């Protein structure tokens, strides 16, 4: 197995968590709410923010409920009991109540009854029917919509969060390096993915939203299959390691052989599109400007009709602790970019002459524009098969 080392960041987690809790409790007071009930199902998802992790630094094994009063110490009600030690050692200013999975919702509802006044709920969109019924029946009251309280105050990264995203970005670079070093004709796609995964896992990644596909003419990126790599394959990789809950993504294209002139020309178009998207990513501007800039370049090259599904999905998305603001970057998106937001910008595109090609970096928005956190060179990679 190949190995890669990156220095682990030293993060003052406790101070950072205090900042996050303060942000949420201030928002509750501004909205005249007395408390917030956050449900998380334990089904981790790159496109949904893990609001419990945001406030506790605890990545749940199963369903959990966090009760956040407008003032004072939150209570985390979690299961299974044997995972309580991990929940308690995060440094979060949180009281942990560990119960059996069967007792979770009843316990959480009883504790929520102790929150006086106007209480809001976040997590309804992912709460299964039975769980919702059980919780609401036991709670016996009304809960207001609190879905966007944490996502709004958590739109921009704190210093501690940013360190983790930056570290995840370094791991993503290592992952692509492993892809380049190990890809060879005859290897199965899932074996290539395993090599990439192993290097990133050893470097600190606990998870990965990883899609690696190969073919002479890819329609889109997809999960690895048992297909064997062939000479001339276009290997596309969406490499998204997760470091202590925070994700960063790197998108690149690798030709298993010598790149053709057409491939180089079309990839150059994606480079220009990425440049244009980066130039548009300024604080205070709508995220839609990124998509419009990218689509402008690709459209001007004659591919306007391909600047929509199914030929592409989005020009990037908020990325950090799962899906965060500005969410999907489309030409109709409305969120305004702010300093310290993190996102991936990727003009990934199906092109009729070459198939799907990928190019994208994770960036942080700074005062004068985006700073790329992934450092893999911006080019079309290739090697003799």
């Amino acid at each position, binding site marked *: *197995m190949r190995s890669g080392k990156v220095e*682990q960041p030293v993060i003052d987690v406790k101070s950072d968590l205090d900042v996050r809790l303060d942000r949420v409790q201030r928002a509750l007071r501004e909205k005249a709410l007395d408390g917030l009930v956050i449900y998380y*199902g*334990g*089904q*981790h*998802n790159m496109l949904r923010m893990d609001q419990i992790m945001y406030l506790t630094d605890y*990545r749940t*094994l199963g369903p959990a409920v966090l009760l956040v009063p407008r003032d004072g110490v939150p209570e985390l009600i979690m299961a*299974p*009991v*044997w*995972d*309580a*030690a*991990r929940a308690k050692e995060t440094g979060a200013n949180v009281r942990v109540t560990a119960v059996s*999975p069967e007792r979770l919702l009843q316990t959480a509802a009883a504790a929520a009854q102790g929150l006086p006044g106007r209480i809001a709920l976040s997590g*309804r*969109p992912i*709460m*299964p*029917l*039975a769980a*919702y019924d059980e919780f609401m029946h036991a709670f016996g009251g009304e809960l207001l919509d609190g879905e966007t309280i944490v996502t709004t105050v958590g739109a921009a990264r704190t210093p501690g969060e940013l360190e983790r995203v930056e570290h995840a970005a370094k791991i993503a670079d290592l992952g692509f390096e492993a892809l380049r070093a190990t890809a060879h004709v005859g290897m*199965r*796609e*899932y*074996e290539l*993915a*395993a*090599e990439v*995964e*192993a*290097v990133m*896992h*050893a470097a*600190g990644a*606990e*998870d*990965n*939203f*990883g*899609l690696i*596909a190969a073919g002479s003419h890819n*329609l*889109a990126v*997809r*999960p*690895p*299959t*048992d297909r064997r790599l062939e000479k001339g394959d276009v290997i596309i990789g969406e490499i*998204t390691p*997760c470091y202590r809950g925070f*994700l960063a993504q790197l998108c690149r294209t690798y030709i298993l052989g010598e790149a053709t002139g057409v491939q180089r020309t079309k990839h150059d178009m994606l480079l220009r599109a990425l440049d244009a998207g980066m130039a548009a990513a300024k604080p205070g501007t709508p995220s839609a400007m990124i998509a419009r800039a990218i689509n402008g370049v690709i459209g001007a090259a004659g591919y306007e009709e391909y600047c929509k*599904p*199914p*030929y592409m*999905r989005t020009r990037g998305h908020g990325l950090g602790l*799962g899906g965060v603001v500005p969410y999907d970057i489309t030409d109709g998106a409305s969120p305004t970019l702010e300093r310290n937001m993190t996102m991936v910008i990727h003009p990934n595109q*199906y092109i009729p002459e070459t198939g799907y090609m990928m190019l994208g970096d994770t960036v942080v928005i700074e005062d004068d524009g985006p700073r790329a956190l992934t450092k893999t060179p911006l080019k079309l990679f290739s090697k003799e098969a």
Partner: protein
Amino acid sequence: MQTLHPVLKHGGLFSDWELLPRAMFEDRYARIQHAVAAAGDDAWLIYGDAQRYGDVAYVSHFVPRLRSVVVLVPKSGKPDILCSIGSRDIPASKILTWFEDMRPYTRLPGEAVKLLNDRGLTGARMGLVGTRSSLPIAEWQAIAAELPGVVWTARDAEYAALRRTKDPAEDDALRRSADAVAAAMREAEQALRPGRTVREATAEIDRALRFAAAEDIRILVASGAGAGLQLRPPDERMLNAGDTVLLYLQVEVQRYWSQAARTFVLGPPVEAQRALTARAESALAAMQAAVRGGARAADVAAAAKAALGDELFAVAESYGLGAGIGLDAVEPPAIALDSTATIPDDGALSLHVAVHAGGYGAIAGKTLLVRNGCVTTLGAEPSA
């Protein structure tokens, strides 16, 4: 055992139709259609997501790598499958199922309502499978509000009864999954060594499993001097000479899960460690000896209690002692003292015993196949 769910199933995702032939799924589909008609329903909607997909995989072989999926089985005619994917993802997703028609969705309610409209089921009697346990309330309310003429009835029990009928090909799938776990345990003998972190060691174990075409891999570890600590996902702790490492693996290959657990000592074990490990293994053996088709799950748990004594059993019980295993990592019956379930005549079981005492820890676990009165350990037997 409860494990950490990943953001995506990122192992090899494909269908081995030689291992699990299409004819097997066609037979299952026919049995389900017969059950739909027998229940007096017009069709069943079967819901699954990336966490609990066994009901959907049973009929379709499909596994959602993230988000959700819905299968419509009418009492006659072809099935439909709705997947939370983009239209560009359909070619790659269709290789995961024998179903011909696949519809993508970004929002389930609209597409589900459209499907029932298209199939003339807006005034139908519909059975529901997997919805109460997994379908988000908001999506359910939106679907139900749009279809006031439909009569909905939960059919989870009927479907579970169908799933209890095992196909011979499932043995081979379970065996392949268990063999991958066994090979990874052998890899662990080399990977777990002083001077490296738990994460570096488990990266090698994970790699071995992915090379065996694992679709999903869950790893829990407890490590330290004596390792009298709770299991947890791999972390950055440095392994030292003399450490004890409790390793639990839960792995999915071709939709089928298996699991195993083993205690490693990075050097010569002290007597207390050896004794505790022997207790865990003897409790596992006692449970295995109590397993037979028709036995009470509570009696299997009681066998562990007799072997461990009250104090150690309380620790083992907090982790759980095992359950059915197959298309879901945890299926009925739960192995527990208060269980009223019985062990099926043909099925697979996960059994595990994790204990801590006096600063030491030990774990043992395996996957068993119960067939025609025989109980077989899947994967190679772990060596002490």
